[in-house]
């Protein structure tokens, strides 16, 4: 049976990061990806689209990643959506961000060929790589 295509919301004010993440997650991971350029847009998209997970940049102007994460966790309709934080300063922030409810941390710059696998690993999802291996073992399935 064909499984439902998962939707990811990428929130980052850097257009390059949004575009590369979207291409990578769609082409390698087979996800449906929507992207938002600010924390405010991200909150609106999250409430409307109810994505399966959110990838959220930490350092953004206006509403930054911490504030956006806090609001996502406060709103009943988005509180259960896992949020992966995207940051260049992982060492200093890791425990603090996990303590605030983040599901995991992704480090910038990410490798576009492996981003999907990293997301799946954090969320405990089967990755497209797993599926390919499974298919290679049992092509009839």
């Amino acid at each position, binding site marked *: 049976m064909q499984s439902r295509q998962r939707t990811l919301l990428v929130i980052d004010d850097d257009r390059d990061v949004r575009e*590369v993440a979207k291409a990578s997650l769609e082409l390698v991971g087979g996800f449906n990806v929507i992207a938002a350029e600010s924390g405010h847009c991200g909150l609106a998209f999250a409430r409307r689209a109810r994505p399966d997970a959110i990838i959220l940049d930490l350092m953004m102007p206006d509403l930054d990643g911490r504030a956006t994460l806090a609001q996502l966790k406060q709103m009943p309709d988005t509180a259960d959506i896992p949020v992966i934080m995207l940051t260049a300063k992982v060492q200093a922030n890791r425990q603090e961000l996990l303590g605030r409810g983040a599901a995991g941390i992704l480090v910038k710059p990410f490798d576009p060929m492996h981003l999907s696998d990293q997301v799946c690993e954090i969320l405990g999802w089967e990755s497209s790589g797993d599926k390919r291996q499974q298919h290679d073992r049992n092509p009839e399935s």
Partner: protein
Amino acid sequence: MTGIRNHDKVKAALEKVWLHSRPEAFSRLATLEGFAEELRSGTAHPEHLAAAELAAHRLSGSLGMFGLDDASSCAAEIEAVLCHQSAPDITVMAGLVRRLRNLMEGTPPTAKIPHKHDL
């Protein structure tokens, strides 16, 4: 086969993104070069320091996606110098910014993406 097709598609997508983001990346480099020059001439402005920090942060976070790993690391070094030193060392800053330009001009984008036969 799927992996190879995806590889080609991702590489094409990255090249397309790099094509329109390259001018912006070099504009950020120019911001850093301008601030290094201000440091040298003793006219560095606090607002320009903030702009330089942001430029270095953006470059360190994005260049690596396009295979410019060394340039990304160099930008991270510049960001660290700007963030953690109240008076950034003029010589260090100038050297790092010069190195960053060489790395950005010298490395082909998406060099990190593996060859098809590696998949």
